C-alpha cells in the first residue's frame, strides 16, 4: 500500500512519527544496494542523504516540517547539476566532475526538505532511448525481475540464458524510471527532450510527466536540445506528480525562457467528472510498428472515456510523420552547438596531448564522447554549415512550426486532451535492443512522444496495463499549453480506472521483511 499510494501517505506517517526520515532514508539506501544489479544509480550520496534525513528529522521533531516533501527520498538524473555530488551525464567527458552549484529544480526540492539519495543512470548526455549507451552500462528494467514477467515469459532455455532475458528501461531517463519503479525512491527527476521521461516511465510502469516548456526552470540541466528540453517528473502516482510539479514550477530569474506569470500549485480533486471532456484520438499515432496489444489497449482506454460520458473523437495531426526527421536536424544542430564547450580547458576530461591547443581539443573530444554523441555533433555541424543552413535547419524549423500548428488547430477545435500510446510496444530485451544502432532506435522510440516537445506541450505517460509478456504499457495524454491541472486531473481519473498492478519484486519483499519486521505499527506495509 505504502508504495503504490505514493509519498503523500508517507508524509502523513512521517508527520505522525510512525516512521522517521532517517529510517526511510536508510531503507531506501539499503534497497538501492540490494537492487544495485539494476544499475539505476551511478552515484549514491549516502552520507549527504543521511545528513539531510537527519535535518528533516529535527524539523519533524520540532513539529515544523517544510511541507509534504520533507524527508521524502528522491533521485535525480545525472544530467542535473548537484553541488558537491558528481554530475557525469554518463560520459567520460564529465567523469569525476563535481559541479559547484545545484540545478534550480534540485535546489527547490532540497529547499523543501527532500532527501537526495543519488544520481541516476542515463544514455550519454541523454542521447538515446534505451538507457543503454552510457559509460556506466545499461540500466535493467526492474520488471525483468518481477514475478509477473517471470511467470509469463519463462526463460528460453538454460539458466545461462536467463541473464540475457532482462529488458531495457527505455530512456534516456531509464535510471530514474527504474529507481521509482523498484521503490528505491519516491520521486525522481528525469529530462524530456523527445520523450526521455515518458518513454522509460511507460516501460517501467511509473508516471512520467513532461510539463509545458517554460513552466519549469532548465537552469542546471545539462542541455540536449535547449528549445525542447524540459525537466521531467517520475512518480508512482499522478497525485505525487502534481505535488512535485507544484514545488518546481514557476519563473526562474536564471532561465530567461521560464514564464513570468506566477504559478499556483494545485491539488487534484478526488471526484472527477469527465463528461464535459473532449478527448482527441490522433489517427497519425496509429504508427507503423505499433503493437496490436497496445493498439487494443489504446482503444479500450478511449472506450473508458466514452463510457464515462466524455466526447471521444478522431483528430488529425497531419505533420506528425515529419517530426522524426525534423527532430533529427534540430536536435543534432543544437547538440553540435551545446557540446562545443567541452574542450577540456575549464572542466571535465582533458586529453594528455600537448602538441597544440587544437590537437588537445581533438583528442579530448575523441576520448570524452562516445560514438553517438560524436555522430550527432558531426551531423549537427553539417546542417549548420552556411551552404546547408537554409535547406536543413531553416526547413526543419518551419516543419516544427507546422507540427506545433497541428496541435493549435486541434485544440482550437474544442479538443481538451489528446490520448495516444506512449511507446510502440512493451520493453524489448537488451540483447534484442542492441541489434539496432542508437540512431535507429531513437527514431523509432521517440515517434509518439516527440511532437509534444516540438510544440512545447505538457504530456504525461500513465501506466495502464501489463502486456502479454507481463511488462508495463503506458498511454500518453497531451494537454494544452500550461493546462497541467486539466491534464493531471484527467490522468488521475484514468489512473483510478485502470488499476495498474504493483510490481512484485523478490528483492523488495525480502528487504521489507528484514528492515521492517520490528515495525508492527506500520500497518500499511
Amino acid at each position, binding site marked *: 500500500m505504502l508504495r503504490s499510494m505514493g509519498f503523500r501517505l508517507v508524509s502523513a506517517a512521517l508527520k505522525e512519527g510512525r516512521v522517521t526520515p532517517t529510517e526511510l532514508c536508510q531503507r531506501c539506501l539499503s534497497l538501492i544496494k540490494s537492487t544495485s544489479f539494476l544499475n539505476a544509480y551511478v552515484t549514491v550520496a549516502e552520507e549527504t542523504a543521511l545528513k539531510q534525513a537527519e535535518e528533516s528529522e529535527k524539523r519533524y521533531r520540532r513539529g515544523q516540517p517544510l511541507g509534504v516533501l520533507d524527508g521524502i527520498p528522491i533521485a535525480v538524473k545525472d544530467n542535473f547539476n548537484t553541488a558537491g555530488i558528481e554530475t557525469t551525464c554518463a560520459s567520460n567527458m564529465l567523469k569525476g566532475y563535481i559541479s559547484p552549484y545545484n540545478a534550480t529544480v534540485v535546489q527547490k526540492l532540497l529547499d523543501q526538505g527532500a532527501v537526495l539519495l543519488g544520481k541516476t543512470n542515463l544514455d550519454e548526455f541523454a542521447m538515446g532511448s534505451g538507457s543503454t549507451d552510457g559509460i556506466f552500462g545499461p540500466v535493467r528494467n526492474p520488471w525483468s525481475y518481477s514475478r509477473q514477467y517471470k511467470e509469463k515469459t519463462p526463460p528460453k532455455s538454460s539458466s545461462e540464458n536467463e541473464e540475457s532475458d532482462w529488458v531495457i528501461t527505455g530512456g534516456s531517463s531509464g535510471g530514474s524510471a527504474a529507481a521509482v519503479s523498484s521503490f528505491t525512491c519516491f520521486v525522481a527527476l528525469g529530462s524530456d527532450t523527445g520523450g526521455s521521461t515518458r518513454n522509460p516511465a511507460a516501460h517501467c510502469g511509473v508516471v512520467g510527466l513532461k510539463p509545458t516548456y517554460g513552466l519549469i526552470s532548465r537552469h542546471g540541466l*545539462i542541455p540536449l536540445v535547449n528549445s525542447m528540453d524540459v525537466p521531467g517528473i517520475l512518480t508512482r502516482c499522478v497525485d505525487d506528480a502534481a505535488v512535485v510539479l507544484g514545488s518546481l514550477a514557476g519563473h526562474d530569474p536564471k532561465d530567461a525562457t521560464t514564464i513570468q506569470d506566477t504559478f499556483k500549485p494545485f491539488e487534484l480533486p478526488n471526484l472527477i467528472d469527465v463528461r464535459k471532456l473532449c478527448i482527441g484520438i490522433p489517427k497519425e499515432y496509429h504508427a507503423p510498428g505499433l503493437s496490436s496489444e497496445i493498439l487494443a489497449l489504446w482503444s479500450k482506454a478511449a472506450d473508458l472515456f466514452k463510457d464515462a460520458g466524455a466526447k471521444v473523437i478522431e483528430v488529425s495531426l497531419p505533420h506528425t510523420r515529419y517530426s522524426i526527421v525534423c527532430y533529427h536536424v534540430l536536435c543534432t544542430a543544437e547538440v553540435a552547438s551545446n557540446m*562545443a564547450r567541452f574542450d577540456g580547458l575549464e572542466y571535465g576530461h582533458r586529453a594528455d596531448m600537448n602538441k597544440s*591547443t587544437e590537437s588537445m581539443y581533438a583528442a579530448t573530444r575523441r576520448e570524452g564522447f562516445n560514438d553517438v554523441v560524436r555522430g550527432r555533433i558531426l551531423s549537427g555541424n553539417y546542417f549548420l*554549415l552556411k551552404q546547408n543552413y537554409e535547406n536543413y535547419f531553416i526547413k526543419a524549423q518551419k516543419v516544427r512550426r507546422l507540427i506545433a500548428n497541428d496541435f493549435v488547430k486541434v485544440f482550437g477545435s474544442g479538443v481538451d486532451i489528446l490520448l495516444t500510446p506512449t511507446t510502440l510496444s512493451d520493453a524489448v530485451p537488451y540483447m534484442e535492443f542492441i541489434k539496432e544502432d542508437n540512431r535507429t532506435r531513437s527514431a523509432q522510440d521517440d515517434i509518439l512522444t516527440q511532437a509534444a516537445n516540438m510544440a512545447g506541450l505538457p504530456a504525461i505517460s500513465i501506466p495502464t496495463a501489463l502486456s502479454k509478456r507481463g511488462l508495463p504499457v503506458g498511454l500518453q495524454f497531451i494537454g494544452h499549453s500550461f493546462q497541467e491541472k486539466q491534464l493531471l486531473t484527467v490522468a488521475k481519473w484514468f489512473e483510478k480506472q485502470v488499476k495498474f498492478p504493483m510490481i512484485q519484486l523478490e528483492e523488495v519483499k525480502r528487504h521489507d521483511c528484514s528492515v521492517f519486521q520490528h515495525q508492527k505499527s506500520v500497518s500499511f506495509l
Partner: protein
Amino acid sequence: RAAPHPAPGEGGEGRAYGWLRASTLRSGNAVHPPFASPATAALASWVPVVGLEIHVQISSNSKLFSGSQVQFAAPPNSLVSFFDASLPGTLPVLNRRCVEAAVMTGLALNCSINKKSLFDRKHYFYADLPAGYQITQQRVPIAVNGSLSYSLCIDNKMSQMVTKTVRIKQIQLEQDSGKSLHDDARSQTLVDLNRAGVGLMEVVTEPDMCCGEEAAAAVRELQLILQTLGSSQAIMAEGQLRVDANVSVHHPGEPYGVRTEVKNINSVRFLAKAVDYEIQRQIEELENGGTILNETRSFDSKLGCTIPMRDKEGKQDYRFMPEPNLPPLILYDAKSLPVNMNHQQVVNIDWIRERLPDLPSVKRAKLVELYGILPEHSFTLLNEDGLAEYFENVIKQTQMKPKKVIGWILNDLLSYLKQHALTVKDSPVSSFLLADLLNLLERREISSSAAKQVLEELWKGEGKTPLKIVKEKKLELIQDQKELEQICQSVIDRQEDEVIMMVLGRNQKVLNKLIGLVQRATRGRSNPVLVKQILEKKLSE
C-alpha cells in the same frame, strides 16, 4: 576573428612604402600612384574605400549575460561567473543596462531601433571562448540604418573644417571574449576570462570613408558621442573601443576591389596610419601587377605597417544558429508599452530618447553661439574630457569676455595639462581659481604677464589664492602715476640710441622695446597701456 600571432617572415619587411599624405588622398577621392607613367596615369587613378567595424565595450557594472562585475585590470580570472566559464547547465540572462546603452547609442547615431531583435550563436573554437560560441546578433540586430557626422580639417588647417557623414549599417549586442596570453618560451597559453562575456556593441559602418584621416575623425567623434552618453568609456588604450578597418581600392566607375581587414589598431592615430598604409600598399600591389587577397592583416605600430595574420586554415564557417536560451529581445515605445507591464522589466525607447544628453555636435554649436568662440575652438573644448565644462564654469565666475577666456583655456591650461599628461579633472588649478585670477586681470589689478606668473605659482597647487600670490610676490600693477613716470624716465635715460631713433621716426618696434623694458623693470607690474602713454608723452616732449 583571427589568430593573434602574425606569422614571422610573411609580408611587410623589405618594402619601403612611401607615406601618402592625407591631403593628397582627399583630392577628388582619387589617388594617383606615385610611380605611374604619364601614359597610364589618367586610367590608373584609384579610389580607396574604407569601412569600419568598431567593437565598443558597454559601460556597465555587470556583464551582458551574467552578474559578474566588469572591471579593467582586475586579477586574472577573478570576475568569472559559472556562466562566463560556460559550466554545463548555465544559461544566459540578458542585462537590461546593456540593452539600454545600445538603444541610447542607436538613437544618438540616428538609427532605427528594432523593436524585436534576436540573438544568435557564432561558433568557433578558441581558448578564450569557453562556450565554443559567441552570443551575438547576426540576423536581426538591435539598431540599423543610422549615420554619424564628423568634421575634419583640410590641409591641417584648423580654420578649414568640413563635415562628412558615414552611414551606420547596424549596431549589434554581443559578448566579448576572454584574453589569451601565449607564453612561447614555455609553449603554453594562459587564459583570463575576466573579459569573457562583457557586453559589446559592434558598430558596423558602410564603406563611406576614403582615407585614414576620415576614419580617425569618424572614430574620434563616435568616441565623444559614447562618452557623452555614458554608454561606454570608449578608452582605446584599455580596449574599450577596438577598431577593425576594411580597406579596398578600385578604379573610378569600376566595382569595389577585394578588401582586406586590418586589426590590432589601438589608437585613433594608428587607425589613420594603418588605413593609409594599407591603401598605399594595395595600390602598389595592384600597380605592380599583383592581386589583393581577402585576408586579415595586423597593424604593427612599431614598424608602421600591416602584416598578414596567420589565418586559421582558410575561411571559417561560423555555423550561426539562433540562441535558443534567449527569447527575442522586445523593446517598447510610448505607444506599444503595455499598461500592466512592470516598468522595471521593459525598455522604453521613447523614455530613453527624451533623456538623451546634448550630443557633441549640438554642444559645439551651442558653445559657438553662446560665447562667440571660433568653431575650431569648440572642437578643442570637446576633445578634452571636462574641458568645455571647465570653460563654462570659468565664464560663470568671471567678468572677462569668453573670447578672451578661451585663450587662457586653450593656450595656458590645456598646454600645461598636455605637458604634464594630466586630465582636466586632475588640474591643480580649478575653474574657480582661474576665474579668480582672470578677474584680477580684468579689473586691471595685475598685468597679463603678472597673471602668467601667478598661474605658474598656482600650478604648484599649494592652496594659495591668486590674490595672496599677487601680494606675496608684489605683482600688483603700479597704480602710482608718478612712480611709473620715474621708472619710464630711467628707462629712457638708459636707452639713448633708441630714444633718438624714436624721436626721429616714431618707430613702433622701438616703442615696443621700451615698453618691454619698463615691464621688465617693474617685473610685469606696469599697465602697458599706461606705460605707452607715458613713454609717448615723454618722447614727444
